């Protein structure tokens, strides 16, 4: 089976080189046979990638330990579930998964736009296949997944225990779907430049793909945070780890792009800027993979250390150079149709929003790369930790939230100060009242009061937007109040989908502020049967229980939990020892009791000889709001990317025209 995998990957590489060239020259020289052949080659690549992926899955399932990757990722007794999903637990498998996803995206683009934009599509596919060439080069020559060992080990090492968690099954696929997804809008942008057709078509056709990539990346980060919270046992969900930052960076730039591209659609402005943003988002998604997979920076993801970094750096350099040269060459085609009319307008707010997003991105980039930069300059690796990111990015994020509250209140083009005031003052009053109330109820940290004030301002602004929109919709349609609300959203999906996303961000921020500033941590040691109080809670340790299976030994320490007089249940934090991992590996299994307002979070840090156990207990306020906000954000994205019937009508119209042009062409050729 590994031979089939080898040959498939080699064949896919050859076909991807061919498809890139055939589609490019087919479009340039107007050779229909070459374009048709390039399309078929694209299908062929997908088939071969799928065969290679299935071959590796088969080898993992049958546990052919002669294959190096199988020996590293699985072991006898490892649950089948983790053996199957362990394919993306290591470098070679995850790169193979990456090319499979890229193939799926490419087929998706080919199918969805099979009758659209003939002047763009061959180039779009050519660019996507070019990206495929790079990953297949890496897979064939630097990280081959089917490499065999000189011997057959009796057992494998097994999947990294940290990755044996339900969230880790979904986290990498979503993250990769996000990273890979940015290839699509990038390919559309490059196709627009290559074909010289830099009008509205590429923006319209790629918008939904950008949202899909953005949504997956967001979902990937959410699952990553959930995994970190429930698996790593340090009580948090975001640590500004380089690999977390690697996914945040393209997401930030993607967010800037999604905002500024609206200005291009509405006003014909920011055309060069949008090109720059999408190039940056794509390069950052490759850079993210580079950070994850090269091991260039120390992090908890250091299990991914490898030597593929050079390949990635060369590809990033080629991509940047090629994209910028092409962009420079096409600058005359990208002149703005209009100029900014007034500072009090939505497009001006979007401009500031973009500057802030870039500022936050640069902060994250600088902090992430600082160890390398400092080593290059001083010869010493200096790491900047969460305090740097919190101190620099935190205030920028607050300003961003304030702007997020102002932007929706402003119309396109311009408004008068009188009208702007009428909309901005009520949320300001609400924010001030909220801040006073917070102070009166005992919140004494000024930064928290200010931060919640900003969140209150933005939330009030958005709720007022919904209310005013609903009132206007009712007046216009005369519908039932509930129906009018849904009509409002259905008729303005992009606008109100965006507002739902904003509300999701605000909920998430409420959770972040609460859990960041009001976390309580205590270390306690309890003898069997002993009780103690932690805040309003009472915990009683029962007795340590040991168990063993084929891959690990476990010590579980059940705890009874009460809040006041109310019994909440039994929590079972545990310590696992994975003895098959070289050198052995100890992992904590966290126990969490979640509620809307706070989480009671217990980590077992050790069991002592006298039978007592030591725990680290966190009381984390408002963490549930982080997850709820993230889910609302995803829901809003889904609303915003729901197909727009008006746009569909336009595309149908264009398809019909193209079909009639082709039939005329066919008749004349016949």
């Amino acid at each position, binding site marked *: 089976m590994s031979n*089939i995998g080898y040959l498939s990957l080699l064949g896919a590489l050859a076909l991807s080189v061919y498809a890139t060239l055939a589609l490019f020259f087919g479009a340039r020289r107007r050779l229909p*046979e070459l374009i048709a*052949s390039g399309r*078929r080659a694209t299908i062929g690549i997908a088939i071969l990638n799928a065969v290679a992926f299935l071959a590796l899955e088969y080898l993992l399932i049958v546990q052919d330990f002669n294959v190096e990757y199988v020996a590293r990722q699985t072991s006898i007794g490892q649950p089948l579930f983790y053996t199957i999903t362990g394919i993306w637990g290591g470098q070679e498998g995850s790169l193979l998964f990456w090319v499979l996803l890229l193939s799926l995206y490419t087929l998706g683009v080919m199918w969805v736009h099979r009758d659209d934009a003939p002047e763009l599509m061959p180039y779009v596919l050519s660019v996507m296949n070019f990206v495929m060439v790079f990953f297949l080069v890496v897979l064939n020559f630097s990280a081959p997944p089917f490499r065999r060992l000189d011997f057959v080990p009796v057992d494998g090492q097994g999947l990294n225990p940290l990755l044996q968690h339900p969230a880790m099954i979904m986290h990498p696929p979503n993250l990769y779907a996000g990273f890979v997804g940015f290839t699509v809008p990038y390919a559309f942008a490059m196709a627009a430049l290559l074909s010289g057709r830099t009008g509205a078509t590429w923006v319209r056709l790629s918008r939904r793909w950008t949202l899909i990539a953005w949504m997956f990346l967001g979902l990937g980060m959410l699952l990553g945070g959930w995994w970190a919270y429930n698996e790593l046992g340090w009580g948090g969900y975001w640590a500004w780890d380089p690999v977390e930052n690697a996914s945040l960076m393209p997401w930030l730039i993607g967010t800037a792009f999604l905002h500024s591209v609206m200005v291009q659609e509405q006003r014909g402005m920011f055309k060069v800027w949008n090109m720059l943003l999408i190039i940056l988002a794509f390069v950052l998604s490759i850079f993210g993979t580079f950070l994850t997979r090269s091991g260039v920076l120390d992090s908890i993801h250091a299990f991914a250390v490898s030597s593929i970094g050079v390949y990635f750096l060369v590809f990033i350099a080629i991509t940047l150079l090629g994209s910028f040269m092409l962009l420079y060459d096409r600058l005359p085609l990208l002149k703005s149709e209009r100029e900014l009319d007034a500072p009090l307008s939505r497009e001006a707010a979007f401009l500031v929003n973009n500057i802030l997003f870039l500022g936050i991105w640069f902060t994250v980039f600088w902090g992430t790369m600082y160890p390398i930069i400092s080593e290059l300059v001083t010869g010493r690796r200096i790491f900047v930790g969460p305090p740097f990111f919190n101190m620099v990015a935190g205030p920028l994020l607050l300003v961003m939230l304030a702007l997020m509250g102002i932007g929706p209140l402003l*119309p396109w083009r311009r408004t008068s100060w009188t*009208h702007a005031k009428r909309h901005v003052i009520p949320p300001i009053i609400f924010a001030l009242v909220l801040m006073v109330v917070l102070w009166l109820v005992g919140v004494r940290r000024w930064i928290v009061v200010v931060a919640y004030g900003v969140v209150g301002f933005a939330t009030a602004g958005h709720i007022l937007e919904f209310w005013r929109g609903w009132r206007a919709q009712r007046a216009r349609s005369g519908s039932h109040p509930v129906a009018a609300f849904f009509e409002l959203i259905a008729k303005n999906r992009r606008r109100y989908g965006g507002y739902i996303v904003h509300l999701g961000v605000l909920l998430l921020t409420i959770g972040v502020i609460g859990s960041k500033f009001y976390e309580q941590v205590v270390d306690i040691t309890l003898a069997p049967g002993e009780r103690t109080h932690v805040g309003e809670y009472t915990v009683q340790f029962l007795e340590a229980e040991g168990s063993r299976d084929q891959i690990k030994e476990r010590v579980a320490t059940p705890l009874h939990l009460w809040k006041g007089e109310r019994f909440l249940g039994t929590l079972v934090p545990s310590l696992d020892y994975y003895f098959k991992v070289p050198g052995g590996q100890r992992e904590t299994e966290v126990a969490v009791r979640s509620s809307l307002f706070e989480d009671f979070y217990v980590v077992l840090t050790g069991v002592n000889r006298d039978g007592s156990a030591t725990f680290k207990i966190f009381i984390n306020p408002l963490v549930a709001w982080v997850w709820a906000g993230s889910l609302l954000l995803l829901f809003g994205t889904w609303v915003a990317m729901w197909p727009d019937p008006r*746009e569909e009508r336009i595309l149908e119209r264009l398809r019909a025209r193209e079909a009639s042009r082709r039939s005329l062409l*066919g008749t004349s050729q016949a």
Partner: protein
Amino acid sequence: METWVSVLVGLGLLAGLVGYVVRPILRAGRQPSAEPWLPDPTDTSTEELAELLFQRDALLAALHDLQMDLQMGKIGEEDFRRLDALYRARAVEVLRRLDELQEGEAEIAPTEAAEQTWEAWIERAVERARQATSSSPT
């Protein structure tokens, strides 16, 4: 033995795919091409049509937003009238260019069902403005 079988299966798969990929080239010239992605650099009419339709769509959305902004009190009457006239003038220009491409009429005429929709209302308004402009003496 097993190795040889898997190599043969792999090579067979590759050979089949190569045949599938080169088939359009081998059959070139035998029949008219049905390739839907054949760009014609000399014919920019579809692209122009796409641009005009997207522009029209953006203008309709802008008129819709403007109306909403007025109803929500985000802009004053004066700004509304000025911007409304500006967008309508642009919409008329776009519709005229669509007419020139012989594409305008069928698309603009609203159906009975569509009469109820907000978009149709705007389209009718723009259409009236367009007719008024075209019938006025120049």
